């Protein structure tokens, strides 16, 4: 799926015609899309070497996924918000607030955790809808509305928890984050179910990639040179097979990875293949022209915020389950990581540009740097500085490419 998406989005962009130097011009046009993937690989290689191979050990890979799951989940919603030309600063606070609500309902009121989870998602969507209402229909800048939301929900989190940490959660709830796919085949030390699932994903991905390449062949002069196509797919497939194998030798796929993968697939599909996705990109690209094309731009913006709220709530549940407690400090500053991930992933502040896969890769770049620098024992002070510079570099690279094109 992921590969398919990258190809779709690249197929939609033009390149100068002419056979001579096609590869060179293709690279120039798609510098950004390859650049970010190469950057992730380079960063991983770097930390793999300097940490003496700890980075890619099965236990650390598992950790990496668990640590970044909530950032990735929120980045999916944030990508839509940013593509539509807005921003949401409140997601960290909403995450904390929903985690607190879940703790109060499940731990203090003894509510069934599935019911509580559903209520929490609904409340998240409602929070997003409320903010989206002012942004979409009253045209109040999203920066201000969600800045207010950030303060409000930070305060409400404190109030709901009465300043205390609330926990622990029942075992069933914790499994969202700390559970793994069951080992149905009973092979000791190897989760065959996960391995098979991973291989199935790779197979489906390759089929989609080949089909899409075959179908688009000749219809566009933007065909990816064969070397690139096969090289890229080979690297991706190899990476997924390796990660699958590594995770299978440890405890198998974490539940949250399955949730995440499904969400990534669904949101990729929405953004690249559906009319709703088209409309969101159009709104971000030119709101006035989109409105005059008969598209209800207000409702669209409203829905992207409601969706963002729901995903922030889901991230809140995942985060609370992982810590096994709800604390007043949960979610502090998460919005910055999420927004940074989306921009590193190539989205534009002006709207209309960005991909789900880019945002996910952006989140992993941030995550791998966090993880790798922690393993190396680099202080939090330097970590912040380095992350900030990487964000700046990524965006400078974008602007440089755009000006040159």
């Amino acid at each position, binding site marked *: 799926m992921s590969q398919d998406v990258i190809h*779709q989005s690249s197929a*939609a962009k033009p390149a100068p015609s002419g056979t001579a130097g096609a590869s060179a011009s293709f690279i120039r046009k798609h510098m950004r899309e390859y650049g970010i993937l190469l950057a992730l690989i380079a960063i991983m290689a770097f930390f793999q070497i300097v940490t003496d191979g700890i980075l890619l050990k099965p236990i650390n890979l598992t950790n990496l996924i668990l640590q970044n799951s909530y950032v990735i989940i929120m980045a999916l919603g944030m990508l839509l918000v940013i593509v539509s030309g807005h921003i949401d600063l409140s997601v960290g606070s909403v995450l904390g607030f929903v985690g607190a609500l879940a703790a109060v309902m499940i731990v203090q009121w003894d509510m069934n955790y599935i019911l509580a989870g559903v209520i929490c998602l609904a409340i998240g969507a409602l929070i997003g809808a409320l903010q989206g209402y002012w942004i979409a229909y009253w045209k109040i800048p999203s920066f201000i509305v969600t800045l207010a939301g950030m303060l409000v929900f930070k305060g409400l989190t404190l109030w709901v928890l009465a300043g205390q940490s609330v926990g622990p959660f029942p075992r069933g709830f914790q499994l969202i984050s700390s559970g793994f796919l069951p080992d149905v085949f009973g092979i000791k030390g190897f989760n065959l179910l996960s391995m098979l699932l991973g291989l199935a994903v790779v197979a489906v991905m390759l089929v989609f990639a080949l089909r899409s390449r075959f179908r688009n062949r000749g219809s566009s*002069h933007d065909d990816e040179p064969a070397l690139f196509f096969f090289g890229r797919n080979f690297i991706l497939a190899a990476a997924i097979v390796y990660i699958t194998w590594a995770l299978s030798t440890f405890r198998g796929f974490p539940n949250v990875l399955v949730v995440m993968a499904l969400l990534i697939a669904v949101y990729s599909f929405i953004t690249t293949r*559906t009319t709703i996705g088209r409309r969101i990109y*159009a709104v971000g690209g*030119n709101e006035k*022209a989109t409105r*005059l094309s*008969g598209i209800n731009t207000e409702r669209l913006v409203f829905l992207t915020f409601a969706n963002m709220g729901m995903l922030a709530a889901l991230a809140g549940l995942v985060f609370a389950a992982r810590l096994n407690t709800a604390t007043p400090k949960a979610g502090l500053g998460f919005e910055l990581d999420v927004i940074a991930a989306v921009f590193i992933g190539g989205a534009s502040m002006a709207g209309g540009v960005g991909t789900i896969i880019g945002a996910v890769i952006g989140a992993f770049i941030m995550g791998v740097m966090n993880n790798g620098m922690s393993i190396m024992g680099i202080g939090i002070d330097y970590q912040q500085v380095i992350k900030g510079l990487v964000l700046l570099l990524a965006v400078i690279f974008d602007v440089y490419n755009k000006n040159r094109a």
Partner: protein
Amino acid sequence: MGTILQMREITKTFPGVIALDNVNLSVEEGEIHALVGENGAGKSTLMKVLSGVYPHGSYDGIIEFKGEECRFSGIADSEKRGIIIIHQELALVPLLSIAENIFLGNERANGGVIDWSQTFGRTRELLAKVGLKESPQTRVTDLGLGKQQLVEIAKALSKEVKLLILDEPTSSLNETDSEALLKLLLEFKAAGISSILISHKLNEISKVADTITVLRDGSAVSTLDADGGNVSEADIIRDMVGRSLNDRYPPREPKIGETIFEVKNWTAHHPQHSERKVCDDVSFHVKAGEVVGIAGLMGAGRTELAMSLFGKSYGVDISGEVRMHGKAVDVSTVNRAINAGICYATEDRKTYGLVLDDTIRRNIPLANLDGIANGIVVDENRELAVAGDYRQRIRIKCSSTAQEVINLSGGNQQKVVLAKWLFAGPEVLILDEPTRGIDVGAKYEIYAIIAELAKTGKAIVVISSEMPELLGVTDRIYVMNEGRFVGELPTKDASQEKIMSLIIRSGHRN
């Protein structure tokens, strides 16, 4: 008195267009020199050359001001010499006070610290000169348009103006404010300040101007001595529009059928000044296969009419009825208007028509995404086929439909806009300035598309400021002025003179 300004053999070209062709203009000291011409005749371009917006080197010719040759590299240069231009859209900062606006960029200050008493004192003197009784501390946004205009003039006076250029100064003013402004110009004249007045209101011009220069198609066609009001409006109009129609329009045989589209008593109010009517009791109809033109000057309310009809996209407090095939239809949102079979291609394709950074093939289906989707899933094969089809049918020149529209020429961008609306399947197509800013060859192709569409039985409305264009492509012309329809002519009986005099006569009534 001598000549203060001499512009000699000014030629300015844009890619594909000659905007000014060997224009000569000379202004005497202490005279009011009127500059008239149709929209697009080159008046604004000439003034931009004069004020340095187009710097020396970007045009050919010589500018002599007070006997010295000038090579302005920007507007600051020309202002330093005392040439001040006041644009149609005022350049004031609404939330700053009158005094702050007047001295913006030219602050009365000692070492960066503003001397408020000098600022206010000087402002009071300037306001007295222009006859504006307001406190220097009043915010500009709290003033009416007429008074804002006076603030602009006071600002010009603060810069020791020698030559004042006013671009359509009275177009948005009411009668009293216009009178006051013209009187002020006459006072300046007595004080030895020369002015250049650009205006469409010929009655005002004949009242105050000493000399009139008429521009047409980028050339100065005549200079009339208007001293004492001895020039008739008919003379001016003849010079403004007197060009021949050659075969710049594709031939067509109109096959006109039943009435499809009817608008009755359509009235809309300005969104900010809700007492002002931008469309006032407008009624018209269009038949199948008919091309109907709406003529008028800029600001006549044509775009506002079209946009208010198209999903109430402009204006407030809109009333009236729209009928399709005799049945009243709901056009209260863009989507409903499209569903009723009405489409509107905007005059400003970059702002309102296209997602510029997106590709041709993704722009074309934007108004009809359902047409390329199964349910909510976009069928990219169909998208590709649709884009390819329109590319071929209306000859969009591009290397591929995967090209971004921002890289297309104006004419091809316009074709993408047309393709978008054609794919939405309209019965009525309202085209607002369909050939604005595109070169002659592409214009012909757009006209051919219009003719082709009419042949297939669509009802077409063309809004245009270029009268020859309307005369060339339409069957019937409505004339609009100041929000009202002031005349209707079959194109075969129409002429530019007739249209212009309808507009001007309706202006006199006010």
